[in-house]
């Protein structure tokens, strides 16, 4: 059995979604136009993931295995709606930016995947750490992807536009809106994601070789 620390840290590199698990790619591509979209989506997903892992694990002794999937969906959907309502009330700008991708967390395979593959087989403590690790890993991945695309696309980094937090890293000429518009368009998301997957695979191959030698 893994140590409790490694249940948490595995989500940060070894099993980091979307790169290692290659799950949850649809929102990854859609919301990473900016750093703000990236971390916002990551934070919302982390909340749902942690809560659903915790509750699925707590309900494990009473849920009959035959109806586990509907039970998971009810738990997940509840936390997604809570997230949606809270965001719409208290972070309206972020909520408008992420739009339909917040309710779509319900069908994010990372969450159902963790409920089925981990939380339904482990205790509440481990499940909570697993959810937290995977969630933070997902947030990091989306934030890096979002920063990269925003920086190359518009030369700016927005952290929280509701409070006007953000910097224009590369100044734009007057009247200029984009540096490299391709990066903030959907195809740019595929290219960036592909490049990041390549770098991550190269890095882990190198470390595997170093271990073998």
């Amino acid at each position, binding site marked *: 059995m893994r140590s409790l620390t490694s249940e948490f840290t595995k989500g940060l590199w070894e099993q980091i979604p979307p790169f290692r698990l290659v799950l949850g790619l649809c929102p990854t591509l859609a919301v990473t136009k900016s750093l703000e979209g990236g971390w916002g989506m990551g934070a919302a997903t982390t909340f749902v993931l942690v809560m659903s892992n915790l509750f699925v694990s707590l309900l494990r002794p009473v849920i*009959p295995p035959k109806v586990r999937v509907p039970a998971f969906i009810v738990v997940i959907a509840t936390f997604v709606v809570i997230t949606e309502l809270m965001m719409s009330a208290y972070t309206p700008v972020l909520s408008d930016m992420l739009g339909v991708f917040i309710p779509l967390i319900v069908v994010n395979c990372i969450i159902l995947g963790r409920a089925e593959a981990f939380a339904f087989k482990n205790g509440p403590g481990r499940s909570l750490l697993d959810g937290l690790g995977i969630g933070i890993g997902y947030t990091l991945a989306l934030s890096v992807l979002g920063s990269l695309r925003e920086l190359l696309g518009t030369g700016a980094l927005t952290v929280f536009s509701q409070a006007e937090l953000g910097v224009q890293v590369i100044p734009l000429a007057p009247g200029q809106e984009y540096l490299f518009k391709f990066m903030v368009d959907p195809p740019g998301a595929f290219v960036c994601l592909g490049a990041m997957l390549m770098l991550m695979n190269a890095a882990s191959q190198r470390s595997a070789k170093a271990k073998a030698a």
Partner: protein
Amino acid sequence: MRDRIWFMVLVLGLVGGVAGLGLAAVRDLTFPVIEKRILDEKVKPTLETLFAPLGIDNDYIADRVVLDLGLDDWGRKIRLTVFVGRKGGAPAAVALQTAGGGYGGDIEVLTAFDIAGGKIIGVKTLAQKETKGLGARVSDDGEPFIKQFAGLAYEGGVKLRSADGEVDAISGATISSTGFTAAVDSAVRLLAERRAEILK
């Protein structure tokens, strides 16, 4: 026991029930905040311009009145939000949102009334799906058709000239003009019917 049908039904029912209760609590907590944000963003700027000439001094967003208009075909309650502008505590202006059938769908209109003067202060299109360049002109605040509503005496209803009224239709957009005028007219009727409730 975990394989029995009744147990599965019971567990799913309980999980669903608890989830429903939790969601109801969160909705009660967030609904006022979300509603206030939508009103502040969408309705407040329009009302500010419409109510400005009358020297309204209350917070008409907070003082809004919700009317019960009966039940719809599915038995759900139909509600209408009415904004009452007060001057020194006495109601001076009322604004309400109604809809009329246009050429491309419903035209949503906000009508503001000067209660003391018995006149319409002004009208504003909130949503429409009319033909561009013709019916869609109802969205343009500078359009002569829209401007003629300002200052119109509303007692007895508001009608197009073709129906013995005083409003000239937009030429080439009769259906849109009729729908728009019908929306204003239904606002007049609602105000007359529910006057006691609105101005209490």
